[in-house]
């Protein structure tokens, strides 16, 4: 097996691992939701995480399994993934997302600091939930936008 096929095979293994982990997490989430009703936790978050893992795993498998059968496709796919320009684009997008993430967390800290002195209303309930969701989703959106932007400019 050549280097590219080995690399593709490692991606396929990662895909299966993610899929299995996702399915186990979904099952665990459903079991917790049905049996641990007395606990004050929202176990849908566990199920949601499982769906995310399983989705990622399926994505990997769809992308890489077909390439395993054909040496030329395996080579092209491996090259595309490790291509220096693509790596640069992903690195720049990740850097932007990191700073946005850091800024959001810093904003949250500032808010909490002002809230503790009574200058601002405390982050609680739905507002806190939306803020935390934004801390996850906004950097991710910035990462995707950064990739699209740099694919045009670089």
């Amino acid at each position, binding site marked *: 097996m050549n280097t590219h096929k080995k690399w593709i095979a490692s991606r396929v293994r990662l895909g299966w691992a993610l899929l299995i982990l996702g399915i186990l997490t979904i099952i665990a989430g459903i079991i917790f939701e049905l049996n641990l009703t007395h606990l004050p936790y929202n176990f849908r978050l566990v199920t949601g995480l499982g769906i995310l893992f399983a989705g990622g795993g399926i994505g990997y498998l769809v992308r890489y399994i077909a390439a395993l059968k054909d040496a030329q496709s395996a080579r092209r796919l491996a090259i595309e993934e490790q*291509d220096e320009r693509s790596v640069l684009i992903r690195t720049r997008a990740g850097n932007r997302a990191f700073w946005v993430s850091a800024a959001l967390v810093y904003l949250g800290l500032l808010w909490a600091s002002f809230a503790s002195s009574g200058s601002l209303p405390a982050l609680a309930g739905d507002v806190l939930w939306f803020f935390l969701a934004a801390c996850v989703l906004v950097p991710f959106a910035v990462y995707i936008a950064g990739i699209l932007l740099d694919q045009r400019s670089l």
Partner: protein
Amino acid sequence: MHNRLAELRAQHGLTQQELADYVAVSRQTIISLENGRYNPSILLAFRLARLFHLTIEEIFIFSVEDDTDILFGGQS
């Protein structure tokens, strides 16, 4: 940085995909290189130079003016 990549590729009768396959990068990278939007790593520059039996300087043309702009913000 300017380069002669499109000209050399045409001289050798290669498509962008064939050139990309020879130097193990994506076709999009070749397009970006030819358009001058992207400067290659030293490794890729060497691969291209070896493929065309030229030196790096014969393919990628270093411009003092462009570099001065970067170094001194246009004030030489």
